[in-house]
């Protein structure tokens, strides 16, 4: 006799439960959080009604941390402990940092990524970014009234693997479950495309505070396909400020300014740049620490002239992206402008000239990325409505390869490949009896290893001794939908198992991240155990719910015994989730995952068959 099922309180399988998900634009200058409410994407405001959170973090001597406008205001007073534009240092070593002389921080070089010495000790850019993300998460939870299922975090399309991984780690550190890393221009294209029901080939010109991206997308019947992307991960509005800053130093004959004056002049530079967007000329008045005063005037034309090379610098990636897509400017139906820096009139003019059409500026260049990310987050969290039948197909921005003899790069995954992608390449031994092999994974477009970014080094050991050239070592690169790489190597010719799996690291190991996480939790006064338990209970609830939905929808794919096994695993997990042992709950989650593996396979087959249904061979022949 079949028994009636009654759902566990708190773990019930409500079919249309709305999951709380947000999109976060973690910007160089400002950050935003947005969500989809009643089908419409909106940016969430803080208690003062402001949606933009300045990406500034100040570390206080008493252990306190100030984020946003308050930190920004203190930057001239306390430049060393007030970090702005930290995005420029994500996944970057000291030698990668441009204009280091103009940045008032006390850097500490460390393998992979710089650290900034503050009154609270050395801080990695990952930790600083986590401080920016945390108040955004809290803002969202307060506004939506519950714990978040997860967030989509945006990154510049031209970010490499190290920068992406660093961003993901920052989110984890801020207590955010990352649903996906989404490329900023792609997010903008989603927001623009869905709002305007756009079809055709579009270019997205995204000049942010510190990064430049150019993506070319084809929009057709709900599919957003990125054809190519290019950019410069160290070019943005900050560089325009820097030109003004240098101009001021030059005009006022100051060299070099102290940290407080440097900050004052930088803030003035930004103000002047913004003023020149609406005015033909702007006054430049600054009082220095010496009591001396700068009093100058600059015109819009002067500014355009002194930054012309920067505008030109953005056009090289535009040309490359068009060439990679196999297109010319005539093929581009519209140019979407993203990022506050695209408000500068001479940039709009240059883009209009190059594409021979006025760019689309009918959307807020500051918000469009966060709004697109929110739309994606809503769908990824499982709140897909019938009208949400759209799909993103994004690409990897930079080629991935391995070092070969002579310091040359063997390209394994070419840039602009659609994600996810896996590519394998075979290598062999160089010497008789060689039992180990060293691999060096790099990212970039140049032929020489020294000109590319080093992502990981690893060794495959335990290769059975053979004559040179007899072993067959297969190296597989897998890049997931976040654009993150994992590499595995395996000896193929012998039965002996020799394989290794690595994820590139940019200087912070998983253990270090876990350590920071613990420290952060302790600092916040939380109980680590309680938090782990809560997390596992939430995860258990999520997995049970997803499995029950799958059973309700596709249960006919299982025979009675198979179904009974899955139901037993669900019941066990529910029992465990009521207990206090987070490790036991994790075991239960893993057991349910194993029990549903075959079911997942059949459901996937089923949906593929459904997709191809009616698609008989002779029908497709045209």
């Amino acid at each position: 006799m079949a028994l009636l099922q009654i759902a566990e309180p708190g773990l019930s399988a409500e079919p249309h439960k709305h999951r709380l998900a947000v999109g976060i634009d973690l910007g160089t200058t400002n950050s935003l959080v947005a969500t989809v409410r009643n089908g419409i994407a909106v940016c969430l405001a803080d208690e003062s009604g402001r949606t933009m959170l300045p990406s500034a973090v100040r570390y206080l001597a008493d252990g306190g941390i100030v984020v946003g406008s308050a930190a920004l205001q203190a930057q001239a007073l306390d430049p060393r402990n007030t970090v702005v534009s930290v995005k420029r240092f994500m996944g970057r070593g000291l030698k990668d940092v441009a204009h280091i002389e103009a940045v008032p921080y006390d850097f500490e070089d460390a393998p992979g990524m710089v650290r900034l010495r503050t009154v609270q000790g050395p801080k990695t850019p990952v930790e600083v970014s986590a401080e920016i993300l945390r108040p955004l998460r809290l803002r969202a939870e307060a506004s939506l009234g519950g714990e978040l299922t997860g967030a989509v975090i945006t990154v510049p399309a031209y970010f490499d693997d190290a920068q992406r991984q660093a961003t993901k780690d920052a989110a984890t550190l801020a207590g955010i479950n990352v649903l996906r890393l989404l490329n900023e221009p792609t997010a903008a294209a989603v927001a623009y495309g869905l709002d305007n029901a756009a079809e055709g080939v579009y270019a997205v010109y995204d000049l942010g505070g510190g990064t430049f991206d150019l993506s070319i997308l084809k929009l057709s019947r709900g599919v957003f396909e990125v054809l190519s992307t290019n950019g410069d991960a160290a070019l943005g509005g900050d560089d325009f400020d820097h030109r003004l800053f240098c101009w001021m130093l030059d005009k006022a004959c100051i060299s070099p300014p102290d940290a407080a004056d440097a900050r004052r002049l930088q803030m003035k530079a930004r103000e002047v740049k913004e003023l020149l967007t609406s005015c033909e000329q702007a006054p430049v008045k600054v009082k220095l620490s010496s009591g001396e005063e700068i009093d100058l005037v600059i015109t819009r034309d002067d500014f355009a002239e002194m930054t012309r090379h920067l505008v030109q610098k953005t056009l090289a990636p535009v040309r490359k992206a068009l060439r990679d897509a196999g297109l010319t400017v005539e093929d581009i139906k519209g140019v979407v402008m993203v990022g506050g820096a695209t408000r500068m009139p001479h940039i709009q003019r240059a883009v209009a000239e190059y594409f021979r059409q006025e760019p689309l500026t009918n959307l807020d260049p500051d918000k469009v990325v966060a709004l697109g990310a929110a739309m994606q987050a809503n769908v990824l969290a499982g709140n897909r409505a019938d009208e949400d039948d759209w799909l993103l197909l994004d690409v990897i921005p930079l080629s991935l390869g391995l070092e070969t003899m002579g310091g040359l790069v063997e390209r394994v995954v070419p840039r602009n490949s659609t994600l996810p992608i896996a590519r394998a390449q075979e290598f062999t031994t160089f010497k008789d009896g060689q039992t180990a092999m060293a691999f060096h994974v790099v990212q970039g477009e140049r032929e020489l290893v020294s000109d590319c970014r080093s992502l990981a080094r690893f060794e495959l050991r335990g290769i059975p001794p053979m004559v040179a050239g007899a072993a067959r070592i297969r190296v597989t690169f897998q890049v997931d939908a976040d654009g993150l790489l994992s590499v595995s190597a395996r000896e193929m010719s012998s039965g002996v198992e020799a394989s290794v799996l690595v994820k590139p690291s940019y200087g912070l190991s998983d253990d270090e991240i876990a350590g920071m996480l613990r420290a952060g939790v302790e600092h916040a006064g939380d109980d680590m155990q309680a938090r782990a338990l809560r997390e596992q209970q939430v995860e258990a609830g999520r997995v049970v719910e997803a499995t029950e939905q799958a059973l309700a929808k596709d249960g006919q794919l299982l025979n009675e015994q198979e179904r009974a096994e899955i139901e037993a695993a669900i019941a066990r997990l529910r029992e465990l989730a009521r207990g206090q042992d987070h490790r036991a709950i994790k075991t239960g989650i893993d057991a349910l995952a194993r029990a549903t593996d075959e079911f997942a396979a059949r459901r996937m087959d089923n949906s593929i068959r459904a997709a191809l249904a009616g698609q008989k061979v002779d029908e497709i022949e045209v």
Partner: protein
Amino acid sequence: MSIDLQQDYFALFGLPRRYRIDEAALEAVWHKLQAEVHPDRHAHLPDADKRRSMQWATRVNEGFRTLRKPLSRAQYLLELAGVDTGLETNTAMSPEFLMEQMEWREAVEEARVAAQVEELEQLHHRLQQHAREVLAELEATLDQARDYPAAADTVRRLMFIEKLQHEIDDALEALES
């Protein structure tokens, strides 16, 4: 019956196994398949589903990449027929072809050294024309005559041409930056 992750790409895309292909239909099926298997569609599901989704989406992308471009599609057809197109295993190219290759290469090298962007673009364009003519031969040898050894020879010629085009692209890129 389960759908085999290892089935050939033509079967995966529900297309007849031959060189001439309806590119619009291929793209439409690619989108349709990705709409089912893409990781974004499975992000809220248990890990087992996510893992499988990534495997499938990877496979579908690889299939699309292989079938979309004429040269890789031809190589793939020959691979399915068990014909080796590897350059290292077969160097018996006709002397005329090798001579022609040398001439192209010299022209590219000259233009590169002299930094003649227009000349390079011109060469790229002419190579493109040439590739189109050679590709037209492929359809006849693969779909009508089914002469695989001859097709393998044509494929090797196209591989030379493609390599040369990449060299021109790289030279152009280097000159621009």
